């Protein structure tokens, strides 16, 4: 029986926390309160065990040997792809392993973009995109004489749909947007965006780095054309990401990187390429990370994505209420639909100083621009402090966040 079929009920936070060895660590003599999962999530023992088990028992190169070990490794790699597809309700042969979300987006920009963008064409983004969903489009647009167009967000941090619709023009070839904002926590109305875009014959790429670890995702229900997510934010290892694309679109795309594993035949005159997904996986694949990702997916599926979402939503509500009581603190990102991200500023205290004070109290948060400088400009701040939730956080973590912020206010008063 696979872990995916074992449901834990109810949401047993003490047991869940004990699955993550690092949560028992102490920082500066204080227990760790890890509130930076939007940046990168901690790993359960199941993930590190699966990877160790692979390397100690089953490892060989995949797709390249006729011996038993290679066959086992290949099977494990294929099963990892099935899990990566299952998580987002996608077809397995439409799922490509990349290094991370960034590489997945670059793959689409370089392969689809170079082939399909003509001078004067437009790629429509939103103001809340992570740099990884901005820069690849700038690069390919510059090369192709195309243009990046940006749809604005309102003061609550929600995409302004009417403006988005106006910017969606005859030249829009692709819309690229985050499913969930890494800074604001905003859950974007992806289905609506896809319907609007498709009515204009534009494709939609969704950056799912923040959504995949905390919301049930069904790419067909969303109606998008590409969906990308990362292993390391999903409690898995760092070296693996996932790109899903519609089969007929992927089939028509040229290779991204060239090398072994992605070819059909090679001569010095001409090479022909393997079908998807192999066409986009040049070079020896990272089977260790794929196996780790599979273990991570089994883990979150065993808990249940809906239960994780509910858990984080309840904590978000609790944390929001606590932060709103602090004088001089401003929460940035108040969308109706949002995930467990609390970005904030405090009058008279730079986010970096808040981060340092919290660190000394064992509370780990992210401070800075969160790879979203245009969004910082939109809200007129150089940086924010950001506490973000993972499936293992509890109320005590948030109580300690608040106590640390109060210490900072005391120091800088």
């Amino acid at each position, binding site marked *: 029986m696979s872990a995916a079929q074992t449901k834990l009920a109810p949401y047993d936070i003490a047991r869940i926390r004990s699955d993550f060895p690092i949560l028992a660590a102490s920082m500066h003599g204080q227990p760790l309160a890890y509130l930076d999962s939007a940046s990168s999530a901690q790993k359960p023992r199941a993930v590190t065990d699966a990877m160790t088990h692979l390397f100690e028992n089953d490892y060989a190169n995949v797709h390249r040997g006729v011996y038993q070990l290679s066959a086992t490794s290949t099977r494990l790699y294929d099963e990892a792809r099935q899990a990566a597809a299952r998580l987002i309700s996608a077809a397995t042969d439409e799922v490509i392993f990349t290094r991370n979300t960034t590489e997945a987006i670059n793959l689409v920009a370089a392969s689809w973009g170079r082939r399909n963008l003509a001078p004067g064409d437009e790629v429509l983004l939103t103001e809340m995109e992570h740099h990884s969903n901005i820069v690849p489009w700038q690069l390919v647009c510059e090369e192709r004489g195309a243009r990046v167009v940006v749809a604005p967000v309102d003061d609550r941090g929600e995409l302004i749909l009417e403006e988005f619709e106006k910017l969606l023009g005859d030249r829009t070839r692709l819309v690229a947007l985050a499913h969930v904002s890494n800074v604001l926590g905003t859950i974007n109305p992806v289905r609506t965006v896809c319907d609007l875009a498709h009515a204009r014959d534009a494709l939609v790429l969704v950056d799912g780095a923040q959504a995949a670890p905390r919301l049930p995702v069904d790419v067909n229900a969303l109606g998008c054309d590409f969906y990308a997510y990362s292993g390391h934010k999903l409690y898995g290892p760092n070296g693996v990401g996932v790109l899903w694309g519609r089969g007929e679109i992927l089939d028509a795309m040229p290779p991204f990187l060239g090398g072994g594993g992605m070819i059909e035949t090679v001569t010095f005159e001409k090479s022909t390429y393997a079908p998807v997904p192999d066409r986009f996986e040049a070079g020896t694949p990272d089977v260790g990370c794929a196996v780790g990702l599979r273990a991570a997916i089994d883990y979150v599926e065993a808990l249940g994505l809906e239960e994780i979402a509910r858990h984080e939503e309840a904590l978000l509500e609790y944390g929001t209420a606590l932060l709103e009581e602090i004088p001089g603190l401003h929460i940035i990102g108040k969308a109706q639909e949002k995930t467990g991200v609390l970005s904030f500023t405090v009058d*008279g205290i*730079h986010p*970096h100083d808040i981060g*340092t*004070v919290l660190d000394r109290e064992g509370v780990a948060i992210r*401070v800075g621009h969160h790879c979203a400088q245009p969004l910082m400009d939109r809200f007129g701040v*150089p940086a924010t402090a950001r506490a973000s939730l993972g499936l293992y956080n509890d109320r005590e973590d948030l109580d300690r966040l608040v106590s640390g912020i109060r*210490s900072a206010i005391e*120091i*800088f008063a």
Partner: protein
Amino acid sequence: MDLRELYQTTILDHNKKPRNFRVPEDANHEGHGHNPLCGDDFTVHVTLEDGVVKDIGFQGTGCAISKASASLMTERVKGRTVAELDTMFEDFHELVTSDPLQEPDISGMGKLAVFAGVREYPMRVKCATLAWHTASAAVHGDSGVAKTE
């Protein structure tokens, strides 16, 4: 280490009330410093005459460490030669990057000794040195933006 050793009274004071937070009227050199990691962003304006820093001021935003460092830096280098500024920068850099297990060498550092606590916080060294990098770029006429990288 207690946080108060990092955020010493002098640092908190200069963060709240930065000195020379202005553009000298007759400034003839400027440098722009930016720390892309955290968004600290300062411009240092210098009135340089015959190799001497006649006047100096700064503008911009940043964390308490970077702002207080900029403020104290301007006090420290005003009236000094470019060669003296260079030496002070070297000494300051050594102070904030020296081994935290050893006693810091604060001889001749004056008020800048309050930054010895930064040694314990490697993530904050760039904050402390940004204004110095920027001042150095200004007086040496380096073009472009001073980076802490």
